């Protein structure tokens, strides 16, 4: 992360979020085109579940893509006019390290419970979104242990604190997982539709179509509780519940043939297609909140009204 920051100083800054249970510092990268404009935020995190190795790989790839192409790709440069990208490459640092050094199948964090007899909380059950409800376990030895209470884990607290403090500026919250080839909208904790359910699904469908165009990979789109299973305490649900309009979980390749053990030759194609999907979502958000590439000023509005009055007058 340091190298990326150093070699792209004009665009990238590194920001401290907090520390993990094992005291690793958590940083996110802020990709921001320096302008005087007030910008909105797109958040993306990877690696909340340690076992899902393709996820941190994707965040790394995505950052590389942006930095390699922002000067030459008009799509990316136009997005960066209005939006800052906040990217957390590895949410669950302790767990991820543990999956490399000790237990490949580890999923949770590495916090200690029950006097050191029990380890790890499922960080994606630890958020304050109907915490402790359906699809979680209160048994610390379970893979979906939701923790002793909502936001009990330092990692969850670190991310939640930042998101909460900037929520009025965050338009889109993306969290990257594997596997399943799914683009999931809220909610997981209930079958009740989100307030902007149809729009969320339409945008996700658009992204899935673009993704498929790259290598033919099929993604299924819909609310988590219908497409996948019900679960509480997810970051995606929580983000939407505090007011972030676009909130998605992406489950990357594959569909179970290799599951968590995606072969190395699928890393790049997975990252390529997923980048296209993510850009599609960000583009939509950009168009929606910054139409025609510029904010609608009061001057423009007056002119439009005058013209439409004149036009109507001419017709009648």
């Amino acid at each position, binding site marked *: 992360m340091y190298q990326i920051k150093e070699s792209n100083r004009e665009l990238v800054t590194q920001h401290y979020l907090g520390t993990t249970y094992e005291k690793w510092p958590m940083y996110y990268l802020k990709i921001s085109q320096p302008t005087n404009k007030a910008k909105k935020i797109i958040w993306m995190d990877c690696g909340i579940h340690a076992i899902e190795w393709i996820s941190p790989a994707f965040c790394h790839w995505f950052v590389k893509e942006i930095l390699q192409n922002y000067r030459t790709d008009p799509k990316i440069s136009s997005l960066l006019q209005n939006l800052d990208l906040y990217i957390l490459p590895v949410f669950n640092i302790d767990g991820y390290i543990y999956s*490399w050094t*000790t*237990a*490949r*199948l*580890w*999923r949770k964090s590495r916090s200690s419970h029950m006097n050191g007899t*029990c*380890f790890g909380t*499922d960080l994606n059950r630890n958020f304050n979104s109907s915490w402790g409800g359906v*699809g979680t*376990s209160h*048994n610390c*030895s*379970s*893979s*979906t242990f939701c923790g002793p209470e909502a936001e009990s884990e330092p990692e969850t607290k670190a991310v939640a604190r930042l998101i909460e403090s900037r929520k009025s500026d965050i338009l889109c919250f993306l969290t990257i997982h594997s596997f*399943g*080839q799914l683009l999931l909208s809220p909610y997981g904790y209930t079958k009740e539709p989100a307030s902007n359910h149809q729009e969320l699904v339409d945008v996700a469908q658009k992204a899935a179509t673009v993704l498929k165009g790259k290598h033919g990979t*099929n993604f*299924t789109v819909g609310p988590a509780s*219908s*497409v*996948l*299973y*019900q*679960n509480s305490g997810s970051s995606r649900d929580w983000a939407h519940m505090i007011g972030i309009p676009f909130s998605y979980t992406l489950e990357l390749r594959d*569909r*179970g*043939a*290799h*599951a*968590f*053990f*995606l*072969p*190395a030759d*699928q890393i790049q194609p997975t990252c390529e297609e997923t980048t296209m999907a993510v850009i599609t979502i960000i583009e939509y958000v950009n168009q929606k909140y910054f139409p025609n590439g510029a904010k609608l000023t009061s001057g423009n509005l007056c002119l439009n009204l005058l013209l439409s009055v004149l036009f109507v007058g001419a017709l009648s």
Partner: protein
Amino acid sequence: MCLAKNNKQFPGLIYLFSQTATGQNTERASIFFSRSCLLLFQPVLGTGHKYYLQFTTEDYKTRENVGTCLAIVFYLKRKPTPTVNIKCTYTKDQKEVQEDDHRFYQKIRQHTKPIIGSYIPDSYGNIEPAFESAWALAVVGSSYIMWEKSTENLGYFMAQVKHVKQWISKDDSIDFDYAVLLHEIPTQEMILCHMRVIWIPNHPLKVKYFCSSENQSAESEDVSGMESGSADGILNERAANF
């Protein structure tokens, strides 16, 4: 029109596919579960839930479509195993299937030494060519376990072959002992199952298995010595019982 797609509750369908009664009572050792589409969900008042499913399967290597099935899966209240009515169409005819299976069989028989290995795929998703067939056979064998273990609300995927050991049989059958890790949905638990798979082409797969109880802490999974000790004991025992 699909009500739900690729519902993870139905991964045991490979086994179903290979057991369909169209004169093809053979195990397809090289096929993979692909896309499923829930056509209709029908609660039957006081009795249970009926699922009308369409699914396709594909070859694990070439990814080509191998067949399509229509199935009615009826979960009765208080009974974990559903009744199934299934009809399949295949892209290949029986002769081609037999040739495929025979090729697969020969590939394994060609090994001069018994196939013995651990952690397939490895942490990086690699499956060494020498272990590819053993892995594919583990998938099919695991699908039998999944078929028996899965319920209306619990499904499985094979995550990894922890250990594989080939027995040299006196007859023409291929004979493998496996320790496989099954990933359970939606609990996310990893279930360790010991499995004995015996197969001759044109015959159904013989699978015997024993799965460890759930909530096994992942702490012990990769501690070598501890796990292999208990696995060996069970493997030897199963050999004697066979």
